């Protein structure tokens, strides 16, 4: 590495905000040789994206480079002027962004947008640019590329939009490509095809890539070197295999441990033994499953979201529902917790057909307190005008008719304590709580009435891995101790494998495969489940080879 392509030296970035200046990047140094791939991983707030935007001078108005140097091909571009930047961007350094659909101009045909990228740096005529755009669309392997040239972004899928974005990024053969969370929000199978394409193009064209991601597996699988960032600093950097095999920095170690892999258990994630299980609920004689779903269907207009789904759930059992977007998993979970009516089919809870009670009247049903739900995004699952206490107390007041008083306070505090929520946080409003704390409040609210069935709708999807690890541990312990049954909805197969005894794989509203988690994950029978499993990026290379 004699002459690095990109050198970031002691970079500091500050943002002017309402509450004063925020020091987002604190002395980051990174080096990238020509043709090399570097993964920059970190959780939210680590400053990884800010670093990327500082390199291309795309920070928003409030941010500025306070200190440090950025060298590209030996040239100092820290204070590059407008003209110099225009020459640089797209032609020497280009970027691929998160959320590809929003990253494309909604009212311009994709062919024209690629043409714009080309014509910004070459003297191509409109027609020549169009021909070149077609070649690029073919290079990113978009089917029927000639027709897609005239498509608008909203007519393309998210994965296709990201391919268009990649086509634009490589249009002028830059030497460095910075990809900022390029696959966040895409399904795992789409993620794999996009990333394979991206890394293939990079290698083929001898470009260097800086991959910004929160996903250790992704960085490990597609980058030769990895830098780990925490709170605006690079805490550890090194060759991928070595770094993940023997992380030196405590933060890296925690992060690696907290990331679910094909073999980890919930206890591994946080490095604590599971809570001792309470004696299993005494099996009530002559009684069947806690929940039985028969031939459930739901259509929205002409679209069949859930199509003939049947399964059973025993008391105290944990069942996982996995699937990609559009698989109907969320619709199914909403129907089971009676927030949504089914178009056809039966939902038997304790042998009683609760599906016959319309969702609009279920709030008065006696089973309401037995079926509770934990929502996906902790940010919007709490009423912004309720304190944590009021949020947890709400189901108790409504479903158990408890009034204000010491009894209510005791129940709320008990629920909070069970969820590891410090009692002094109970007086706070949601905006005064962290993401993990909000998740705990949401769980405490759901278990406050001591339900027998807890529906968990992607309960950790919006959380950082280290927070996810703690929340998963909490959920696992709660179930062991309380004997609740879980219906665990997730797109993350590893999480479901750890949390659930049985797993159902959904695809386009139908059950694709069902079985005990261990068996299903070790040897999936359906091709789709195998494809899903194969698409998960891993950061434990030796193990991957072992299973491959």
């Amino acid at each position, binding site marked *: 590495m004699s002459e690095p392509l990109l050198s970031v030296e002691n970079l500091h970035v500050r943002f002017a905000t309402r*509450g004063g200046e925020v020091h987002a990047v604190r002395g980051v140094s990174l080096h990238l040789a020509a043709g090399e791939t570097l993964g920059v991983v970190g959780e939210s707030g680590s400053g990884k994206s800010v670093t990327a935007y500082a390199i291309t001078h795309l920070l928003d108005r409030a941010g500025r480079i306070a200190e440090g140097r950025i060298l590209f091909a030996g040239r100092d571009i820290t204070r590059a002027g407008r003209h110099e930047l225009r020459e640089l961007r797209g032609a020497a350094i280009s970027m691929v962004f998160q959320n590809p659909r929003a990253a494309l101009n909604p009212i311009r045909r994709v062919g024209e947008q690629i043409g714009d990228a080309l014509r910004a740096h070459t003297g191509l005529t409109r027609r020549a640019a169009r021909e070149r755009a077609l070649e690029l669309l073919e290079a990113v392997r978009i089917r029927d590329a000639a027709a897609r040239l005239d498509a608008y972004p909203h007519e393309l899928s998210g994965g296709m939009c990201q391919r268009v974005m990649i086509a634009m990024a490589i249009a002028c053969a830059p030497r460095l490509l910075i990809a900022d969370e390029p696959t966040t929000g895409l399904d795992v199978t789409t993620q794999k095809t996009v990333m394979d394409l991206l890394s293939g193009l990079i290698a083929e064209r001898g470009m260097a890539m800086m991959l910004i991601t929160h996903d250790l597996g992704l960085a490990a699988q597609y980058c030769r070197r990895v830098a780990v960032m925490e709170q605006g600093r690079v805490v550890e950097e090194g060759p991928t295999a070595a770094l993940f095999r023997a992380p030196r920095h405590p933060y890296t170690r925690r992060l690696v441990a907290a990331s679910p892999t094909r073999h980890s258990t919930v206890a591994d994630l946080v490095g604590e033994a599971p809570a001792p299980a309470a004696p299993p609920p005494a099996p009530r004689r002559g009684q069947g499953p806690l929940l039985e779903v028969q031939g459930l269907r739901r259509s929205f207009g002409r679209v069949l979201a859930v199509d003939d789904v049947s399964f059973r759930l025993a008391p105290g059992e944990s069942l996982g529902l996995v699937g990609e977007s559009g698989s109907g998993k969320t619709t199914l979970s*909403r129907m089971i*917790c009676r*927030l949504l009516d089914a178009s056809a089919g039966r939902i038997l809870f304790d042998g009683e057909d609760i599906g016959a009670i319309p969702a*609009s009247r279920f*709030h*008065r049903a006696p089973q*309401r*307190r037995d*079926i*509770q*739900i934990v*929502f*996906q*995004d902790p940010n*919007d*699952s*709490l*009423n*912004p*005008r*309720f304190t944590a206490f009021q*949020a947890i107390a*709400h*189901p108790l007041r*409504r*479903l158990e008719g408890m009034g204000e008083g010491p009894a209510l306070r005791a129940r709320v505090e008990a629920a909070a304590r069970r969820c590891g929520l410090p009692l002094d946080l109970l007086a706070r*409003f949601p*905006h005064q709580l962290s993401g993990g704390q909000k998740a705990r409040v*949401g769980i405490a*609210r*759901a278990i406050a009435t001591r339900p027998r069935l807890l529906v968990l709708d992607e309960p950790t999807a919006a959380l950082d891995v280290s927070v996810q690890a703690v929340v998963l541990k909490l959920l696992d312990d709660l179930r062991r101790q309380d004997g609740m049954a879980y219906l665990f909805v997730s797109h993350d197969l590893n999480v479901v494998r750890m949390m659930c005894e049985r797993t159902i794989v959904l695809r386009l509203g139908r059950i694709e495969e069902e079985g005990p988690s261990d068996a299903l994950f070790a040897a999936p029978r359906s091709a789709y489940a195998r494809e899903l499993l194969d698409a998960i990026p891993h950061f434990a290379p030796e193990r991957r080879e072992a299973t491959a």
Partner: protein
Amino acid sequence: MSASTLRHAGYVLRGNPVTALAAAGALALLFVAVFADWLAPHDPVASNVANALRPPSAAHWAGTDQLGRDILSRLIHAARIDLAIAFAAVSLSFLLGAVIGAVCGYLGGMTDRVVGRVVDVLMAFPLFVLAMALVAALGNHVQNIVIATAFINLPFYIRFARAEVNVRRNLGWVEAARASGEPHLSLVLRFLLPNVLPAMAVQISLNLGWAILNAAGLSFIGLGITPPTPEWGIMVAEGARFITAGHWWLVAFPGLALMLSVLCFNLLGDGLRDILDPRMRT
């Protein structure tokens, strides 16, 4: 909650002198309207033809009109009637509109689509013409000005409440409230509406200004309130005849009164948004 709201309001006002000024202006306006009888230096309807069309002077700060009446006193008394109309109209349309809109937004479905369509059509219609026609149809009375103004404000509240509730009704915390057994009506009234209120407060404040303009406009063209009742719109209408002769004060002062009161409510609306949003609290 209310103590913290007040504290937050104080904090915001200190940081936003314009909002503080607007709030002070709105309060002053209310004060003038309530205590018009004590504040006005002269009888607003006592004419004195000998003293007609005099420019502003020490005795008559805002001059006198074509009948020799003291313009300042008329302005002060007019504040009462104009504000009363605006408040009555806006409260009426807000109460009705917020509830209709929130219920429609929550329920969705066919009713919601029909209401939404009607509201869209109404909003795009020339509303002042609608108000004119309504007053003409219902009769030339003050209460009909209120009804007409309320009616043309209504679609804004319905649409606003509907849109705001619509984006929230599938949020986690609303579904959680349903899972906690909250009945629908109380979910709309006690959960959704309070969360929509901050945004609506802005609308209310802006609409107050608009309602004042509307009422004044109606009386300017000769509908609703009849002379010699002091009212800003009528005062402008009466002064209009004398503007080409250079008697500017007959129009300028009621015009200024209208402008300042509308300005106060508009600025207050923008300020309210900051105060009522709990996310801005630290």
